[in-house]
C-alpha cells in the first residue's frame, strides 16, 4: 500500500548537459533512486526514496547530480512546522514509533558557540606551539589526593598510582557498537586509536575476535544487554565501561534492528541471527547506587584491579548527583553523554526531547565534584556533539579530562548525516552489514582519515592553548577563567560559572 501522506524529503536534480549516462549513480544508490532506461538510453531518478546521503553526487564523475530539499513548500508556520507535519503523516500511515539515526538535529542553539576563548597579550606572552613544547598528554583514572615519600630514601615514592589510561591527546573515539557500524568502520576506529595513541570504545556489541589485537587501545562496554560479555572480553581491553545510559536516548537501552544482525554480529553478540538486539532499559541488576558499586567491584575483581572502570551516564537533570554517587561507588572515570549524543537508532521523540546539553552537565558535575572534594577520584569525559577542536578546548576548560567523539569520527569516515542508520542501508558502508555496502568503506582510507582528523585537531588545540599562554593541558583543565559567555543569560552564566564577555 502506498503511503500517500508521506512526501519525499529530497529532490534529485540531474543536469542533462553533464550527465554522460555512465550509471555510476545507479550502481551506488542503495535506495534505488537512479535507474537506467536502456530504451531511452537515459538515467532517470525517482526522488521519493532519496535520503540525501550524497553518495551519487560525490561519485558522479561529471558533477551532474545535485540534491535539494524537496520543493514542496508548506505555508510557513511557527508552530506547525513542516517537520512536525511530516512526522504526523508518517505515524498516521504506519502506526509506529518514529525512529532516527544520529544525534538530535533540533535547532535550539549550541552553547559551545556561545562561549569564547581567551588569548594572552603583553602581560603574558602567548606560546608558539611550532617552536615550544606544548603538552597534551592526558591520564584518565583514579588519582590520590597527595603523593607520599618513603622516609629516608631520597626520591623514593611510597604512593602507588592506580591504573591510568594514557592518551596522547584528550580525544577518544566514542562507543559505537559493532553491529550498528560495519566491521570495516570498527576496524578503522581501532587502528586509528592505536596509531594516534588514544582509545576507541567497542560499544555494547561485544568485541569481535579480530580486534583482540587492539586490546591495548580498546575500552569495552558492559551495557544493559551484556552482549558479548565474558571473561575473555573483560581481559582483552585497556579499560571497562559500564553503560548506564547514553545522551541520545536517556532512559532506554540500545537498539539494533534484526536486519543488521548477520552471522558475524550474531557470534560476537552471542544472540541468534536476525533477532532484534534490544537492550533492556535499566541494567536489571542495577536498581540503586549500591548495586552499581557491586557491579563496579565485580568487574574490578574479574580483572584483578588492573584496569580502570568507567561509568557512562546520560546527561539528565540530576546528573551531578548521579555522577557524585558513581564516583563514590568506585568509578575511576565518569563519562557524561549529552543531549546531542549520536546513536544508530533511537525513537525520535526521545532523541529530541530528553536529556540536557553536555555543556551544562559537564560544568555542573565538575563543580559539584570539586565542592565535595572528590574531583581527583575520577576523571571526567564529556561526549555528545563535540564537533571541532574548539569544542574540545572549551570542554577541557569547563572541566573535562577528555572528550569522546562519535559523530565527528563517522563524518570523517564519510558519513553525511542522512540519519537513516537504522535501515541498514548506509551508502557509505559505515552503518550497515550489507556486504555490497560494507565494501565501500576501505579501512585503510578510513583509518587515514581518522588519523588526519585527530592530528589536525591536536595541532589546533595546541595553537589555541599557546594563544592563551598555556603549555600543558593540566593548566587548561577546569580553568574557566579562559572562557567568556556571549548571549547567555545570567542563570546560564552562573551554572557554567563563567563570566560574560567584557568582564
Amino acid at each position, binding site marked *: 500500500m502506498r503511503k500517500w501522506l508521506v512526501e519525499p524529503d529530497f529532490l534529485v536534480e540531474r543536469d542533462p*548537459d*553533464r550527465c*554522460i*549516462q*555512465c*550509471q*555510476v549513480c545507479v*550502481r*551506488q544508490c542503495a535506495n534505488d533512486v537512479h535507474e537506467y532506461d536502456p530504451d531511452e538510453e537515459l538515467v532517470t531518478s525517482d526522488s521519493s526514496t532519496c535520503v540525501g546521503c550524497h553518495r551519487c553526487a*560525490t*561519485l558522479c*564523475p*561529471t558533477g551532474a547530480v545535485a540534491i535539494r530539499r524537496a520543493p514542496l513548500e508548506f505555508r510557513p508556520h511557527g508552530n506547525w512546522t513542516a517537520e512536525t507535519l511530516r512526522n504526523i503523516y508518517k505515524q498516521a500511515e504506519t502506526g509506529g514509533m518514529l525512529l532516527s539515526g544520529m544525534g538530535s538535529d533540533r535547532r535550539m542553539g549550541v552553547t559551545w558557540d556561545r562561549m569564547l576563548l581567551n588569548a594572552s597579550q603583553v602581560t603574558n606572552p602567548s606560546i608558539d606551539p611550532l617552536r615550544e613544547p606544548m603538552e597534551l598528554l592526558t591520564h584518565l583514572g583514579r588519582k590520590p589526593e597527595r603523593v607520599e615519600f618513603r622516609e629516608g630514601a631520597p626520591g623514593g615514592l611510597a604512593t602507588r598510582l592506580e591504573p591510568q589510561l594514557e592518551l596522547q591527546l584528550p580525544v577518544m573515539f566514542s562507543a559505537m557498537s559493532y553491529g550498528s557500524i560495519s566491521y570495516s568502520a570498527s576496524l578503522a576506529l581501532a587502528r586509528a586509536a592505536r596509531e594516534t595513541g588514544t582509545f576507541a570504545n567497542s560499544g555494547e556489541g561485544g568485541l569481535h575476535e579480530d580486534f583482540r589485537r587492539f586490546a591495548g587501545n580498546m575500552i569495552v562496554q558492559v551495557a544493559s544487554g551484556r552482549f558479548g560479555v565474558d571473561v575473555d572480553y573483560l581481559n582483552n581491553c585497556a579499560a571497562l565501561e559500564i553503560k548506564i545510559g547514553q545522551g541520545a536516548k536517556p532512559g532506554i537501552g540500545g537498539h539494533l534492528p534484526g536486519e543488521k544482525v548477520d552471522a558475524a554480529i550474531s557470534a560476537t553478540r552471542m544472540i541468534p541471527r536476525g533477532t532484534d538486539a534490544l537492550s533492556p532499559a535499566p541494567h536489571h541488576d542495577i536498581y540503586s547506587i549500591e548495586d552499581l558499586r557491586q557491579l563496579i567491584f565485580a568487574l574490578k575483581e574479574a580483572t584483578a584491579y588492573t584496569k580502570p572502570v568507567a561509568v557512562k551516564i546520560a546527561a539528565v537533570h540530576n546528573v551531578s548527583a548521579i555522577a557524585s554517587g558513581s564516583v563514590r561507588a568506585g568509578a575511576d572515570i565518569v563519562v557524561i553523554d549529552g543531549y546531542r549524543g549520536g546513536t544508530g537508532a533511537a525513537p525520535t521523540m526521545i532523541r529530541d526531547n530528553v536529556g540536557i546539553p553536555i555543556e551544562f552537565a559537564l560544568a555542573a558535575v565538575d563543580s559539584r565534584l570539586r565542592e565535595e572534594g572528590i574531583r581527583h577520584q575520577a576523571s571526567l569525559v564529556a561526549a555528545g556533539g563535540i564537533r571541532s577542536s574548539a569544542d574540545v578546548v572549551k570542554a577541557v576548560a569547563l572541566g573535562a579530562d577528555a572528550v569522546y567523539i562519535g559523530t565527528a569520527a563517522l563524518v570523517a569516515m564519510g558519513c553525511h548525516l542522512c540519519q537513516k542508520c537504522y535501515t541498514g542501508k548506509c551508502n557509505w558502508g559505515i552503518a550497515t552489514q550489507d*556486504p*555490497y555496502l560494507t*565494501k*565501500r568503506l*576501505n579501512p*585503510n*582510507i578510513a583509518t587515514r582519515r581518522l588519523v588526519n582528523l585527530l592530528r589536525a585537531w591536536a595541532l589546533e588545540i595546541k595553537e589555541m592553548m599557546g594563544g592563551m599562554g598555556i603549555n600543558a593541558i593540566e593548566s587548561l583543565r577546569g580553568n574557566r577563567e579562559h572562557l567568556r559567555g556571549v548571549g547567555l543569560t545570567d542563570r546560564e552564566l552562573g551554572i557554567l560559572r563563567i563570566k560574560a564577555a567584557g568582564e
Partner: protein
Amino acid sequence: MKRIIAHEEHCIGCRLCEIHCLVQHSKSKKIVKAFRTERDRIVPGVKVEESGYVSFALQCRHCDEAPCIEACMTGAMHRDETTGAVLCDVDRCVGCWMCIMVCPVGAVARGADRQVVSKCDLCIGEDVPACVANCPNEAIVLEDEDE
C-alpha cells in the same frame, strides 16, 4: 616494474575505472565531450568483473612471459623496454585476434571498430594510470612488482 594490482575486497563495482580509462584514451580528454562524441569508438582497457557482491577491475597483466606477444603474427604486440608493459601497435594489427584467444585472463578485447584490439597500455606517459587515480576506494593500486 610497476604493476596495477586489484584488491577485490575494496572494489565497489562503480566502474569509474572504466569511465576514466575511456576519457584518458579519448582525443578530447574531457569527460563530457568524450562520452558525447567518442564513446562508440573507444573500448576501455579495464573491465570490472562481477559476481554477487564480489567484484574487481581486470586489465592486462603485462605478463613477463606474454602469450599474446608469442601469438602475434605481425609483431604488433610488443614489450616497451622502459616500463616492461606489453603494448599493441595498432598500425600493425590486422585483427586476427589470436592474442584474444591466448590471453589467460581475457584482458584483450575487440576494438570498437572490430578491426584492431584494445587493451591496457599502463597509461604510458602519465605518472599514475587513470584507473588507479580515479578509483574512489583504492581498490586498484600501483605497486612495485619487486616488493
